[in-house]
């Protein structure tokens, strides 16, 4: 097939994407695991896949790698349809959630195997091996067999196996879950560097929100095999597409407070019930989709850091209200305070040395500039 013809056959949109997944379906037997997945990333993108355990993240990676046959849809890497292309020709590197180290090979051999297969010269292999081993702090383990390693060491070897390669696309499936915090930060930095200096394209599965936030150029949130939202970290955090995303991202998670909204003279007024007290009424100055003059039930999404004690001078646009404090949870650098709003436990984040006692009433400041509003039934964002 001539190159010209080939070009014509690849759709123009796919061409600028390093990876594009189109209408992907995947079932195991009769169980649908992935449903109509559409994602695309450009060269140099860092796509982070997040979602609850069992939502299909690893399955998606496996499909991209060609290790599982999709039931429907199309996957393109570098503009080329991957239909019938075997994993080894897809020019990808992958870190498996279950490590999948070669049990009979030493750590060194595990790492260099891929290069050897690809015919990388011996000297180059050694150089890369040393480089990666240093990076991953496993130099002293190169002659061990996987069975003689600790969990975290195994995971690092699995990382090493991918990092020595220079593929079109990296696939990482929770590559840092078994590392200690310090090492994880270092690795994160390394991956970020890899991404920035080499311009590598990466698909990355993680459960660590900080990892997701700091690494991603694009986050995909999945649930039950369906994509909930695709966006930058900032979009996902601040403008969650629905209650699921809002609830899932951020730790502690966003407070989802049942409220009533009503248009009073141009601005929206949100009122929240409190036990044994009057409703709080807050002004909301952004537009709420589908809001009419009639009172309407909504869910107000407010992150804990947007509810602070009113003494905090940084809250400039803050609107204050007294609330009874139910629980106080000091947590190192912060203090979390729980109060009851709209019949729900609502968490506020206060400074570590906030002077507050459970059972008393305190004055809280609500910053609605970053608040979201959701439709209670569908859970969709309306503001």
């Amino acid at each position, binding site marked *: 097939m001539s190159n010209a013809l080939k070009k014509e056959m690849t759709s123009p949109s796919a061409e600028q994407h390093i990876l594009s997944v189109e209408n992907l379906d995947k079932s*195991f*037997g009769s169980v649908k695991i992935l449903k109509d997945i559409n994602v695309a990333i450009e060269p140099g993108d860092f796509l982070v896949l997040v979602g609850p355990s069992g939502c299909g993240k690893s399955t998606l990676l496996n499909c991209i790698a060609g290790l599982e046959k999709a039931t429907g849809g199309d996957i393109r890497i570098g503009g080329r349809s991957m239909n*019938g292309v*075997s994993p080894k020709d897809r020019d990808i590197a992958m870190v498996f959630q279950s490590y999948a180290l070669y049990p009979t090979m030493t750590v060194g051999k595990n790492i260099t195997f891929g290069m050897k297969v690809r015919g990388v010269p011996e000297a180059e292999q050694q150089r890369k091996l040393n480089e990666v081993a240093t990076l991953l702090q496993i130099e002293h383990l190169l002659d061990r067999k996987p069975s003689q390693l600790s969990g975290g060491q195994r995971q690092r070897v699995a990382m090493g196996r991918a990092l020595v390669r220079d593929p079109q696309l990296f696939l990482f499936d929770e590559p840092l879950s078994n590392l200690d915090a310090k090492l994880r930060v270092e690795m994160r930095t390394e991956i970020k560097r890899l991404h920035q200096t080499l311009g590598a394209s990466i698909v990355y599965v993680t459960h660590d929100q900080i990892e997701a936030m700091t690494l991603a150029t694009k986050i995909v949130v999945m649930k039950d095999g369906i994509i909930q939202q695709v966006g930058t970290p900032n979009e996902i955090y601040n403008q969650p597409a629905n209650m699921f995303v809002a609830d899932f991202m951020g730790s502690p998670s966003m407070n989802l407070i049942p409220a009533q909204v009503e248009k009073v003279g141009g601005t929206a007024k949100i009122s929240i019930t409190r036990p044994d007290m009057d409703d709080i009424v807050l002004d909301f100055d952004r537009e709420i989709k589908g809001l009419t003059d009639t009172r309407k039930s909504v869910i107000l999404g407010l992150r804990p850091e947007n509810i602070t004690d009113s003494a905090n001078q940084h809250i400039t646009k803050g609107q204050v209200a007294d609330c009874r404090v139910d629980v106080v949870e000091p947590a190192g650098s912060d203090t979390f305070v729980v109060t009851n709003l709209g019949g729900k436990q609502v968490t506020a984040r206060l400074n570590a040395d906030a002077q507050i006692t459970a059972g008393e009433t305190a004055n809280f400041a609500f910053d609605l500039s970053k608040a979201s509003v959701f439709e209670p039934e569908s859970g969709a964002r309306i503001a």
Partner: protein
Amino acid sequence: MTDWLEKHVPKLVLAPSLIAIFVFVYGFIGWTAYVSFTKSRLLPKYDLVGPIQYEKLANSPRWEVALTNLAIFGILFILFAMVIGLILAILLDQKIRTEGPLRTIYLYPMALSFIVTGTAWKWILNPGLGIESVFRDMGFENFTFDWLVNPDLAIYTVVIAGVWQSSGFVMALFLAGLRSVDGEIIRAAMVDGISTPRIYMSIIIPSMAPIFLSSFIVLSHLAIKSFDLVIALTGGGPGYATDLPATFMYAMAFSRGDIGQAASSATVMMMIVTAIIVPYLYSELRPRHD
């Protein structure tokens, strides 16, 4: 082109073996089935004469005995060889210091030609020479062990010798299987408070299902083809009380020059095997979602 090659490599790799099997097994089965409808004697002839060989077979008391014996022998032999093989493998798996020598001892019967070991067994089992006389000499006057010369029990001596010969290999098969079970799982079970026998029963053995298939196939193959064993131990006797289909076939095909009869008995054998093996293979190999 290379893509095509690559995609079909697994099938291509399998092809030579499959072709060989199709020619040398299924082709020959077909040949045999054909010959079973002829009047071939010393050498195969190819004129069809209808099912006379089968009629003759149906009327042969010897064939009937052979089939009954196969049922008794097959079931007992497979059962005991499997159980003893498994037990030995498990025992050897207990970090036994002398594992090497013991393993060889359990395995060596396979190495010895039964033409000669049969003689040794014949002596051991013979009431006048072997165990019975040894025990009687030791003062157990009433000890009897005369299965070998009892037409009703002689087939069980074939089982004893057969198990002796084959259980070692089954042990080796199981041992290899045991050794490939992930140690971490066993540790998990130990912590779960599970006793060692129970760990074997419920965790290790179930994960060796494929090994059971292997040993079942090997043993049933041996059972069906047991030939030396009978020839050397009992010669089919007393009378033809210990005849098996394999010895029957051999006698027909080669001592008696009645190839047609041998072919018909072989065909019946294959049908019986099909009836037993196919359901088993189906249950073992049917597609499962794992």
